[in-house]
């Protein structure tokens, strides 16, 4: 449904997007995660035909964004990260305007608009001027606007940013409904937990590069394999560090900043190998006080993936 090929965007000598390759299947909810400035909005703008790539291209529903932008536009609903509204229009007029801009006839529009307002829980606001709506409502109205021409693909740039928890949940429920309708959704966020639960697949982007992709559980698994172990010894810190460093499955040994005699390292052995490592350490006369696995949640994993490149 969406195919991104060697996509590169340079602003002068600065590379905002570096040779991105990605395939997103129909009906997938794909989440782009990455810190601010990673290149998420740049990618989305190119997909939305608003920005010309320096190199590479992307196909949406088989149409090349650089060659057939007009056809691409028919198949996408794009929601920018920052957007404004025409404040002297009422909510229903706002949708009517965009409906007409997509070439829908008056009858079609007046049938569709109540349904869309219903979908985004704004039926009660149809006669309100857009500028008096709350941020969450505007966000939802904008989402309804993306849907007016019934596109197969939705490109939503940080749709949940700046929303309070309740509005966020509301937004998430609407996205679930859209997924159930079979839409392919590409969504971005700089906060991982915001995305993790509603996406089928994630792509982690950092400094314009895609550093990891896969299903949420695959990324979890992959990183889970590389667990972090904490060790505290009674004495002989240097000897202990030397011992652990010698193990081939141990990497990145680092002294603990807060605690004396403590250090941690990344370990990619199995659980059995982990117990054998401890036994061997004790046999080698290392006085282990504490040997424990650090609890990692998705957010830590995310931090771990994205901090490496700096």
């Amino acid at each position, binding site marked *: 449904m969406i195919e991104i090929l060697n996509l590169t965007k340079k602003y002068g000598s600065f590379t905002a997007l570096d040779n991105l390759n990605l395939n997103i299947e129909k009906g997938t909810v794909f989440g782009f995660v990455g810190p601010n400035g990673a290149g998420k909005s740049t990618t989305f703008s190119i997909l939305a035909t608003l920005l010309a*790539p*320096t190199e590479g291209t992307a196909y949406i529903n088989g149409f090349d964004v*650089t060659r057939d932008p007009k056809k691409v536009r028919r198949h996408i609903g794009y929601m*920018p990260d920052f*957007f404004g509204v*025409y404040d002297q229009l009422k909510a229903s007029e706002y949708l009517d305007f965009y409906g*007409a801009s997509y070439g829908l006839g008056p009858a079609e529009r007046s049938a569709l608009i109540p349904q869309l307002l219903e979908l985004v829980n704004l039926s009660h606001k149809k006669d309100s001027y857009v500028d008096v709506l709350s941020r969450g409502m505007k966000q939802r109205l904008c989402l309804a606007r993306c849907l007016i021409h019934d596109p197969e693909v939705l490109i939503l740039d940080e749709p949940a940013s700046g929303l309070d928890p309740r509005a966020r949940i509301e937004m998430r429920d609407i996205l679930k409904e859209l997924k159930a309708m079979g839409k392919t959704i590409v969504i971005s966020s700089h906060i991982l937990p915001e995305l993790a639960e509603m996406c089928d697949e994630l792509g982690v982007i950092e400094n314009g590069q895609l550093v990891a992709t896969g299903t949420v559980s695959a990324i979890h698994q992959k990183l889970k394999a590389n667990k972090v172990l904490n060790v505290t010894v009674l004495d002989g810190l240097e000897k202990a560090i030397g011992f652990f460093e010698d193990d081939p499955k141990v990497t990145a040994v680092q002294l603990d900043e807060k605690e004396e005699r403590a250090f941690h390292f990344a370990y990619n052995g199995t659980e059995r190998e982990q117990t054998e490592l401890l036994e061997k350490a004790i046999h080698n006369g290392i006085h282990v006080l504490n040997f424990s696995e650090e609890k990692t949640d998705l957010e830590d994993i995310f931090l771990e993936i994205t901090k490496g490149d700096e």
Partner: protein
Amino acid sequence: MRSLFINPVLNKEFKLRLRSVKSFLGILFYLLVLGAIALGFLYITSVANQSGYFRPEESRGMFIVLSMVQLGLILFMTPGLTAGVISGERERQTLNMLLTTQQSSTSIVISKLVSSLSFLLLMIVSSLPIYSIVFLFGGVSPSALASTFGIYLLTMLGIGSIGVMCSTIFRKTIVAMITTYGIALFLTAGTGFLMIFILNAFMVGNPNQATNPLPYFTVMTNPAVVLFTVFEPNAKGELLQRAGIEFPLWLSFSISYLLIAFTAIAVSVKKLRPNMRAGKSSKGNPSS
């Protein structure tokens, strides 16, 4: 073709304009200014000739003054109305969403231009009752009035297109506006001074000198001068004679303003959306 002129952007712009109090205040203010000038003129002339009458000759004078004032207002308002149409949407962050719709760039640009100019047209049409004073007293031919409005329309179209073009090219409305005002000022006061300068430098003092087409070309794009030649055919005759050009000034003016409008609209249409293949076609070029 129909969708080019009856389209959503145009519809929405009209709705927004007619809904805003500012628009009505604008028209009201405009009419008050024009009315005050007309009344002032009536008062001054009737006091000056102490007769209490208002003769056709004076009525004609009033027509000239009103028309010039009206042209001044058009020149003043057109950049303000048009130079923000695209950059304003960019600043309010509504442009991206408009550009991802199915609307063609041509349709967006033209509806923006037409909608902002229609407002100005509405102002001018609503000033017609003030002109009726002139017709009440005679002295002006209907064809002069028609020419006057023709010049207004062309001026609005030309300067308005430049405004839309600047609004498309420059990211900031303020820059677009200053540039458009600058160009409008050059096309009027600028070319006017240029003409005077050229006349003084090359032609005054040696009446036997061969004809010089330069003044003609400088004022060809000057709506004020062209409007003046409508009222003062003698001035027109002299200009043509000195320039040695037979081609009517109003026609050169019309052609140049239509050309300006066409070019500016074409540039706006081309620049409104990014050329999606731009980056790739320049790939082969060695860059810095």
